[in-house]
């Protein structure tokens, strides 16, 4: 019973699982259930293993709670205490709701990641079995190197996954459902919340400010859905609405975007007209209705909707682009140190030129459709120009050199005269040829190539595993050099012992096995050699260290 030492947060009686009555325990790190009268848990899940919980709809007769695990399995608990079933279930649900995310964040990600890596990579899996399961090195050590690797060097692996954009209709996906008694129910998922936050940073800011000090999460979202902010057609109603500020900030954001203007001069409607007629001239073009100050409420609500749609779309677009492009944008920003409008002028001509060129191009009238190439986009051209320069100058052979040398050789050949007095005798020549032909004395090494025919396949497989395992260990070992921190010192010591252990537990039995099978060839020679190199390196290092210490 591990439960003795654990903190029990909640105990619920009369909870059925698989038609068996029992008690549900919610503890600090796991949830467990034991059948009535028995002293052990038949069901026990770490919170970290749980993917999500589901509850039965309100109207249902059975009041249930389902836990879905990462493995895909699920466990259903049925709350059967007549009077308090619902409150029991809700208590459990609430508690789980608070607990799960805590574990989800740290444990799961890693576990899942490890799991995925092992599944995707059979070699790694084998290595894991060889090294960790046989306890050559600890699991943490194994992963420490692996995961660190993927985080640094192998960024392509994890970051290659594209940033998922935001659906344009994420707000529409929150379909309100009537709950039957004059209320509305909105279903929010973590995804939607994230979408809202990413699209509307002001809402996120509000959330951080107010939750949980002033409002609970639920209250916050309730207010959000009630606010005019969510309902775009409603016009400012009251100032007590915490989101009215968001609307104002949005307005400011929108304004600033408008003031910034557009980069592409071809879509800039402001500079489209050349000479506008002076005020007071003009024909029967009726003035746009918005210039009229006394507009009906309906009209302005309509234009509010239109504004909102533009803003919403712009924000969704920006949220998608934000992640990837900010560094680049900042780069260009820093280039133009004085962030006033002049530099936009300064940058404009190239964009304009390009756009104009594009606009007048007829690709089918041109004679050859050259393959489309991606233009090199240099944010900082000077860095490109002064980039890393090769240290040694390369030797170039110009075509003239080649021609010269060819001429020279031709010249040599023309003047070639065999020196007949110093040639080999025919017998020596033929014996030399024989020695160099296959089967000859000098060509014996070539017969060894057929190792795959001489060694049975299971031995080969084993050898392969040994190689990967040894390679892995050696990688760990060599990665410690140069040893410049105490941590590395410790690690190199440990690795050396790991290597020795590997030699004793893995390599030696294999060698014996080979000998038993009378396979004369020295299959493990190279492995041993590698280990020896490592040992000698270690010794060198150790003696040097001793010297330094004394």
């Amino acid at each position, binding site marked *: 019973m591990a439960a003795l030492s654990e903190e029990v947060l909640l105990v619920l009686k009369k909870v059925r699982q698989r038609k068996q009555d029992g008690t549900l325990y919610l503890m600090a790190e796991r949830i467990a259930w034991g059948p009535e009268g028995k002293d052990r848990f038949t069901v026990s899940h770490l919170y970290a293993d749980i993917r999500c919980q589901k509850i039965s709809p309100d109207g249902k007769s059975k009041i249930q709670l389902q836990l879905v695990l990462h493995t895909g399995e699920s466990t259903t608990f049925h709350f059967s205490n007549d009077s308090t079933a619902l409150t029991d279930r809700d208590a459990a649900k609430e508690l789980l709701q608070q607990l799960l995310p805590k574990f989800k964040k740290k444990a799961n990600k890693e576990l899942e990641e490890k799991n995925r890596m092992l599944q995707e990579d059979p070699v790694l899996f084998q290595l894991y079995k060889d090294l960790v399961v046989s306890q050559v090195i600890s699991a943490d050590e194994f992963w420490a190197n692996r995961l660190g690797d993927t985080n640094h060097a192998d960024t392509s692996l994890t970051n290659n996954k594209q940033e998922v954009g935001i659906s344009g209709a994420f707000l529409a996906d929150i379909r309100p459902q009537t709950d039957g008694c004059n209320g509305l129910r909105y279903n929010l998922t973590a995804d939607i919340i994230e979408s809202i936050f990413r699209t509307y940073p002001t809402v996120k800011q509000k959330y951080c400010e107010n939750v949980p000090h002033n409002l609970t999460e639920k209250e916050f979202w309730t207010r959000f859905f009630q606010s005019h902010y969510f309902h775009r057609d409603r016009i400012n109603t009251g100032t007590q609405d915490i989101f009215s500020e968001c609307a104002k900030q949005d307005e400011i954001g929108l304004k600033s975007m408008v003031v910034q203007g557009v980069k592409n001069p071809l879509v800039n*409607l402001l500079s489209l007209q050349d000479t506008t007629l002076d005020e007071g001239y003009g024909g029967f073009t009726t003035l746009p209705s918005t210039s009229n100050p006394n507009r009906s409420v309906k009209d302005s609500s309509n234009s509010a909707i239109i504004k909102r749609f533009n803003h919403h*779309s712009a924000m969704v677009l920006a949220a998608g682009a934000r992640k990837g492009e900010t560094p680049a944008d900042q780069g260009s920003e820093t280039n133009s140190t004085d962030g006033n409008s002049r530099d936009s002028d300064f940058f404009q001509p190239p964009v304009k030129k390009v756009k104009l060129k594009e606009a007048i191009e007829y690709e*089918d009238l041109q004679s050859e459709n050259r393959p489309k190439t991606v233009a090199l986009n240099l944010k900082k051209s000077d860095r490109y120009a002064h980039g890393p320069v090769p240290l040694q100058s390369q030797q170039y052979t110009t075509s003239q050199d080649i021609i010269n040398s060819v001429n020279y050789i031709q010249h040599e050949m023309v003047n070639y005269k065999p020196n007949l007095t110093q040639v080999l005798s025919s017998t020596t020549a033929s014996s030399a040829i024989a020695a160099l032909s296959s089967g000859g004395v000098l060509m014996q090494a070539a017969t060894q190539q057929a190792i795959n025919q001489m060694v049975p396949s299971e031995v080969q497989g084993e050898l392969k595993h040994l190689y990967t395992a040894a390679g892995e260990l050696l990688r760990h070992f060599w990665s410690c050099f140069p040893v410049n921190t105490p941590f590395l010192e410790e690690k190199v010591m440990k690795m050396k012992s790991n290597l020795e252990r590997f030699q004793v537990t893995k390599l030696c039995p294999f060698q014996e096995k080979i000998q038993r099978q009378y396979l004369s060839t020295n299959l493990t020679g190279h492995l041993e050699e590698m280990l020896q190199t490592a040992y000698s390196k270690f010794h060198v290092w150790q003696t040097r260290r001793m010297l330094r210490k004394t």
Partner: protein
Amino acid sequence: MKLNIEGLLVYFPYDYIYPEQYSYMLELKRTLDAKGHGVLEMPSGTGKTISLLSLIVAYQKVFPLEVTKLIYCSRTVPEIEKVVEELRKLMEYYSKQTGESNNFLALALSSRKNLCIHPEVSALRFGKEVDGKCHTLTASYIRAQHHGNPDLPLCRFYEDFDALGRQVPLPAGVYNLDDLKDFGRRKGWCPYYLARYSLMHANIVVYSYHYLLDPKIADLVSKELSKRSVVVFDEAHNIDNVCIDSMSVNITRRTLDRCQTNVDTLQSTIQKIKETDANKLKMEYSRLVEGLKEANVARETDVYLSNPVLPDEILQEAVPGTIRTAEHFVGFLKRFLEYLKSRLRVHHVVQESTPQFLKDVFDKVCIDRKPLRFCAERLQSLLRTLEIADIADFSAVTLISNFATLVSTYSQGFTIIIEPFEDRTPTIANPVLHFSCMDPSIAIKPVFQRFQSVVITSGTLSPLDIYPRILDFRPVTMASFTMTLARTCLCPLIVGRGNDQVTLSSKFETREDFAVIRNYGNLLLEMSAIVPDGIVAFFTSYVYMENIVASWYEQGILENIQRNKLIFIETPDAAETSMALEKYQEACENGRGAILLSVARGKVSEGIDFVHHFGRAVIMFGVPYVYTQSRILKARLEYLRDQFQIKENDFLTFDAMRHAAQCVGRVIRGKTDYGIMVFADKRYARADKRGKLPRWIQEHISDGSLNLTVDETVQLSKHFLRQMAQPFRQEDQLGLSLLTLEQLESEEMLKKISQIAQQT
């Protein structure tokens, strides 16, 4: 390639040519040969501009005495710059082929706002401010004062230009707006005045319509252009409205109030000058007595204001005695102003002709016709004498005096309408006096008379015969060219019914109908699910779009559309719309796809192209009729019927269809492009509407696609899109819609080409 267009050697800067380009050049050459005017319609994206430029430049090179100058007018600044870039390409090709450097001077001209390089002035945002500020730095009397008072700021760019710039003409070459600015910066010369000065000896000038059509500007800029010029109006489908706008004036109560303060300032300034420098006013008076047309020697920079009437209408005689002294003139203005104020106090709508109005003026305040005619001119002289620097402040009084001059000059083709309130808000008094030009031929007449060849061209000019009628000229060539296509890359569909068989139409009676709005929503929703990248939807008016968007929002249709694409909507604010447009393009670019809801006749429909993936489908919701209840429109329709025998309905339909064609035409910009054109209104199926679409759209509307349901539309679109998604290579086009020189010269092809142009 080098082409032989009826004996004329034309350098064409591409290796291939579209058959219709060849045909276009043929027609154009015939027009030039006949020294007459022409109306040519060719789909956009078929290289109209380069064909025009190639032929006219070749003509200029071969017959330098017959055609001395090409004046190319376009509508928007980006269009102007595009034309110049194409010209640059052509000129580069010329010098590459002939091996000699070019002696052609080509330049673009735009307003000061786009050309100014003065650090303070160019930082101003609005064109008017830039003009005003420029004037305060460059006016002749300011410069004269500078001699006595060196602290007075001047524009050093203009000073340098004035000192040196005129001695050596601008070196030959192609100058776009940015090139002019660069050149100006290098030399320290004002690019704007440099360009205006170089206009006279340039071989090719590219600028906007207003420099020829608005008398106020044309008189300043284009007065001395050679008669042996060829004038091209590109994108000319809206030219009649440009003509009308430049001659029409609207006066509100606010204008009058501001005018009142202007007049007061004038009076006090006169008073002041009288005390200090009475001589100045006397000199002006004596000049006016002598009948000098302009009381002062007008300097280039002073002619900021100009007579609003056409040059041939300006009286060549002395200013009448009644308004010769400054005080009298101010008193005269005051009287006229009071009269206008009294007219705006009416409570019912008044419509009258100009003679009626003049008679009333005479009866009420005893103002004759003749002094009114000199009003604009007299005011100019006064402002100059008083040395008023910031003329932008005096825009109100200028407007009133221009109105006075216009109303007393033209007795025909104009109408005066006084409306005490807007139709939509009858309770709020907002009186407006519309002085409205109804005859576009008035403004353009001098252009036709003066220049030997005027070519009107656009992608959408159908029906061709209406333009000569409303602009009142005799063209020697009128032709409409189709687009030869190796694959049908446009797919016009007329949706007449919803899936529930409800008739789809934006006509007034069913406009608010819930079923129609829902079906429109459905159409957009279904299309958004199948069309890749960008969709543009046009509504007939902004109010209509607002209502539909609101009702789609309530019905949850927009939410469903958002699942497929992002939604962007045009707003009346140009800056906001620009941003929405850019975001729209970004969303198309990154693959998310977007929908742009826009308005026919709006800025987007007139100036923005949706090439390739920026517009794979365009949906026209309803027929974009102009707001027919407007009195000005009614007056114009009446005038058209009486003067030109054009039926009201014909004109309205023509106007609606040219805008519809403009909208849908935005989506196809070339033969490698493709797009669906959905006309969502049952009325499009009628022959009188359909027949007014450009031929290149009309010929692809099959009888089967005249009255489709939403579902059928979706099916047809799917099929079309799948076909279009197949790779399309140059070889597929070659010989059909794309020709090499050898193919072009074959007998058979020449015969085919002769059929492309449809003469009317």
